[in-house]
């Protein structure tokens, strides 16, 4: 028994596409299967993990929860459309510089969520970034590099070229060899901060 098919007119990354797909197919399925745009990832199919996030008319949408037929008149953006000609999107370059993509599976969804945030709010606070990204799970990074990369990309978009975040880790000098325990730790005057 063949599934009923529907012909759809979709606008994906600025390109008009006519797609024939099973009527019940989600936007995720149509992007990945009918359009071969596999940058949008297949995760939980229940709207829990965020890896399938795309932009629909500029808003982040979980493509596993939306039927393709619902977004016929909309502008759909995926990770494949983020680059501006040969130039990386600022988010892509700050993520690369800070190593904010580790295994990379959550990355496309996070990039698009962040793109929508920056477009809406050019100077997001850390709290706003955290809140915006809280529907996109990441299991590798602990989120900090991602948050820094978003903040930096927002600054680049505002034209602040020197916004690179400060040194990443607190580095120790080479570890001293055997020495007695620090005598100062009980003295709060030694505390800096």
């Amino acid at each position: 028994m063949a599934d009923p098919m529907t012909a759809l007119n979709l606008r994906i990354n600025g390109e008009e596409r006519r797609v024939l797909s099973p009527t019940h197919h989600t936007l995720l399925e149509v992007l990945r299967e009918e359009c071969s745009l596999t940058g949008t990832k297949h995760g939980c199919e229940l709207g829990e993990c965020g890896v399938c996030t795309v932009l629909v008319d500029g808003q982040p949408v979980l493509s596993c929860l939306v039927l393709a037929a619902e977004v016929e008149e909309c502008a759909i953006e995926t990770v494949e459309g983020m680059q501006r000609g040969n130039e990386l999107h600022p988010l892509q370059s700050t993520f690369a510089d800070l190593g904010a993509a580790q295994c990379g599976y959550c990355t496309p969804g996070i990039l698009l969520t962040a793109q929508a945030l920056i477009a809406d709010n050019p100077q997001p606070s850390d709290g706003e970034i955290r809140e915006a990204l809280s529907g996109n799970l990441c299991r590798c990074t602990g989120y900090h590099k991602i948050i820094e990369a978003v903040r930096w990309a927002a600054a680049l978009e505002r034209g602040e070229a020197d916004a690179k975040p400060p040194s990443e880790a607190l580095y120790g000098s080479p570890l001293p060899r055997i020495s007695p325990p620090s005598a100062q730790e009980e003295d709060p005057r030694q505390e800096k901060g």
Partner: protein
Amino acid sequence: MKRFEGLEKLTGRTLFIDDLPLENCLWGATVRSPAARGTIRQVRVPNHLEGSGLVLVDHRDLPGPNVVSLITDDWPILAAETVRHRYEPVMLVAAESRAAARRAAAQIEVVVDPLPAALDFRQTPTAEQIQVGDDNVLKQLKIERGEVDEALAAAPIVVEGEYETGAQEHVYLEPQGMAAWLDGEVVVVHGSLQCPYYVESALTRALDLPAERVRVIQAATGGGFGGKEDFPSIVAIHAALLAIKAQRPIKLIYDRGEDMAATTKRHPAWIRHRTGLSEEGQILAHDIEVVLDGGAYVTLSPVVLSRGMIHAAGPYACDHVRIRGRAMMTNSVPFGAFRGFGAPQTLFAIERHMDVIAKQIGVDPVKLRRLNLLTDGQATATGQVIDDGTDRQQVLSRALDLSRFTYKRSQHTAFNAEHAYLRRGIGLACFFHGAGFTGSGERAMKSLLHVAGLADGRVEVLSASTEIGQGTTTIFTQIAADQLRLDPEQILIAQPDTWRVPDNGPTVASRTTMVVGRLIERACDNLRERVGLDAAATGTELQAALVAWHEEHPDEELLGSARYQQPPGIEWDDETYRGDAYSAYGWATYVAEVEVDLRTYTARVIDFVAVQEIGKVLNETLARGQIQGGVVQGIGWALLEECRWQEGGMANHQLTNYIIPTSDDVPSIRVAFLENPYPHGGQGAKGIGELPLDGPAPAIFNAVAAATGVDPRVLPLVPERLMELIEQ
């Protein structure tokens, strides 16, 4: 150096296995057991599915023995007569689409006559629940040094404590998945995995094929954390069986719910400490019992138990130590490899126990640790004399300074006295993590690695170590480029493919940079020698020599090679469990500051400091990513992530109610490294991957105890559990 594969991942070009275009492929799905234990009476395939072109595979389709090759031959590929856990695979189907395969699998009914299931690893099984030996014990081990009973009897103070930790699901963002197809006589399996040669050996045995007829290729892998060490062998064999039966390519991709329900997880543990102490708090004797829930089959439980036990006495000196451990068989999903591999469980227990001791005998928890921390010349539980020159007191001091520990403590006293419903506290954990395989593991593995000098002057690293998000390809590029004085662009990293790369061991045990990195250095030296150059040669000279060599030897392969050599002075006895358990340890102190809301009984980490000595830091960005990522996974394990069990199956096998940390849940995490280069590690590095999972849970629990005065000992500390403690 920036990540080697970063740009592909950032532009959506990386092909994970589900993304791979595979012409003419069928989709696989798995039919699973509905019961925790029982006899399979019947597998009912509805009439309309029979003869519908659906491909069906069960245990009778296996050419080889029905076992997943690992440590013990007890893990069936497809259940035959009996099942030992819910969601155990029984039958495989393949259909023209993912949806059709799933629909068909859902209509096939496995009818099981139930038998009494062993569901609580802490309880002695009844006669009807016995399924392994005469006691359901999968593995038993003992570490003993000194005269423990005498020392305990003579100790002025003895402090006892029991601690428990729950299961943890890996939640790699990319679910398990494999593609399989036939290339003439050869079975090719391509997919998401950590250890290509584990999968190869499992496949050759199950399919009864020689190694030359099996080829395993790693695809881009969306996270592993140990979950893609043992389990991918099953997915790979299943996909291959379907491909052979259908004579068409197969994609077998788990969905999230199936992955969470059916795959391995971190071992739950119960740990009891009896500690003999002097009046001042010096540890005189340890008597420790470790019990792990092994789940339905052995998988890697013996080695998880052994690593857990070796870490159970913590980074402290003590001459009289007894650690008894066992892994119990139960009718739940098999527990397997997960970042930390037993050490997070036992380090949670000892580090929470240290604070329990401190409170009981009235000694400051920092002083108690200072008094007992190993100094060079002292021995660990297995009798390994530590003399690496690392000043562990200094690691602790740095963590106290960065977290402003003492100052915060006094601030919290004032804050807690005033605030209506918030309570703040700060806690610490001192710990260590052995890098590389336990005991004689590295020697037995005899890892081999090649670097190929190419005709165009570039160099390709041929290694079975996999990139799973941690940065293998970047570190390997960096090490090879430095060693040969070449630009990183001149280095290629081969995709792990058992037909192209030698077996330099699995990507596990925090061994990649330390052990395999060192092999790369030595293989690079060997390559240089093969073209007649010495260690002083520049990159330009090397490249010219490579080009010249190939002109003289057309169509030949030029390889530099290295095989693992054990660092000198390492002795280990597998029989007595005595000796040098690991060639190197990372040392760390983590500090957590928490805030408990007495209205909601939630504990939230508000600041975190992670200080560690891990040899030389090779790439600050990657190292920090490993630490911060591990800390957040540890915060999840401590406070949020609870597997809820229902008749041996995970009931909350979805991310709606199995909660992992989001960007909104993570505190500031300040990471500091102290460096003491390890002479036998790649560029001086020691292992780093697992260490950060060990420290967060005990530091957080100690902070909650400091904040509220309660004594939490069962992990995870979800609000329900904290409420019980506070209301008592």
